[in-house]
């Protein structure tokens, strides 16, 4: 399993809010909701749309292309047209720094 890597400062991501970051040659989205941080691939499993450009409501992100919704806490697909979860990654905060560990 990969190491935790610094991706952003806490202050860069408003609450609620999200930030697209590059981590080990991949694009992932870090979410900040109710004081908690989460991280998903920037990929809608329906047709590869950029989740980071979607609308965030509570703990649900909607793909900007066709409206498929995902739970930002687990990556689970909540509505059609997506049927498969998008990959989620571990996040930790130390001081002012947000770290992400990519899932394999």
């Amino acid at each position, binding site marked *: 399993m990969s190491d935790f890597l610094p991706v952003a400062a806490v202050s860069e991501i408003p609450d609620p809010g999200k930030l697209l970051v*590059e981590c080990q*040659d*991949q*694009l992932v989205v870090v979410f900040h909701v109710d004081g908690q941080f989460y991280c998903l691939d920037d990929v809608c499993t329906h*047709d*590869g*749309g*950029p989740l980071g450009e979607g609308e965030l409501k509570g703990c649900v992100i909607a793909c900007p*292309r066709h409206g498929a919704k995902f739970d930002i806490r687990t990556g689970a697909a909540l509505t059609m047209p997506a049927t498969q979860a998008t990959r989620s990654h571990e996040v930790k905060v130390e001081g002012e720094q947000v770290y992400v560990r990519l899932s394999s």
Partner: protein
Amino acid sequence: MTETAVQTGFNQDAFDAFLAARDEPAWLSDLRRAAWEKFLELPMPSRQDEEWMRTDIRLFRLDRFGFPAEAEASQLDQAEEGLLRQGVEVGGHTVAVDSRPLASELSDRLREQGVLFGALDELVREHGDLLRPHLLARAVDPFQDKFAALHAACWSGGTLLYVPRGVEVEEPLHQLSLLSAGGVELGHTLVVLEEGASATLLAESASLDPEAAGLHCGAIELLVGPRATLRYVNLQNWGTGVWHFAHQKALVDQDANLQWTIGVLGSRLAKVNQHVALVGTGARAQVNGVMFSEGRQHLSYHTLQHHEAPHCTSDLLYKGALQDDSRIVWRGMIKVDPGAQKTDGYQRNDSLILNREARADSIPGLEIEADDVRCTHGATTGRVDDEQIFYCRTRGMTRNEAVRMIVAGFFQQVSDRIPIESVRVALGEAIARRIREYE
């Protein structure tokens, strides 16, 4: 992964220096300048565009690359012979590293018959008037998008095959394009077969460092004259760090034959437009595609079979196998113009998915404006069938042996259409080496 060498970038100063150092006909310099202006003007492709919405290039940084550096003769020592040339007696061959020609040979007999084969940027100096009507003038649009404009402005090296009227070249010709670690390849391939000529060109690409970053921004133009026959094989086998962007177009004239086979194994991300235009009555084109993706590779191929004249036949078969987290996007179109009656067009794309995380997108399309045609298309996507594996295991095979045999069988249909044994063997062996142990 090897670090990408920081180069000077594609900026005005670098372009001016590049142009000043070239000894080329004025019309070619003018074309480069016009394309450079277009390159500066055009934005990077947007994911709002249908053609790019499944291909994410946000991690591609053009400013990390620049004009190819001078090739060193020592790089030739690192170059292997290539996969397609093994066991084949060739009539000529070329080798280039980072778009810089390092070696070029053509048999005396072919030379005496008027065949031209070698580095395009060297031959265009001597044969400018002959090539002017063909080079980036009839097939590939140099202003189509930012990558096409970059290529048209900055191409170097490249390959020319010119076969005069009625000359039949029996021995295949071989072209090997190599990339160094962090290198840039902007080669342009131009093939011109005059009326009644015939030839076979085996082209392949590879990286000297299989994991290093690199950029290929290329174009291929195949101009097949009336009653001419061209067999063209293009094996893309870059390393896994290479960004590959290409525009490829063939024009097939009256009663001419084109057989175009592509093998796609390499690159980090490939975005290719492959376009076959049947421009003369009775033209025939067969397009074969063999693709294998692994790791996090993304291979995006957009094909167009454009029937512009009546009584033409086009037959496209693309087959792809995917493993790991890789993705293949194929988007194909058969377009039939109003006057192209009696068209016979076919396109098919089959995808075999070897594990759950891989993804294939097949998007066939028809756009028909004539009313007396036969156009059909199909696409299949599936996983390796557990019942087939079970059957194989009851015959004493391991699971891995069974998977390999099923994958080989999947590609057999397209392999049977390739008449050149070295190509069949090279593709089969390269794919077999890549299949993981699925025990």
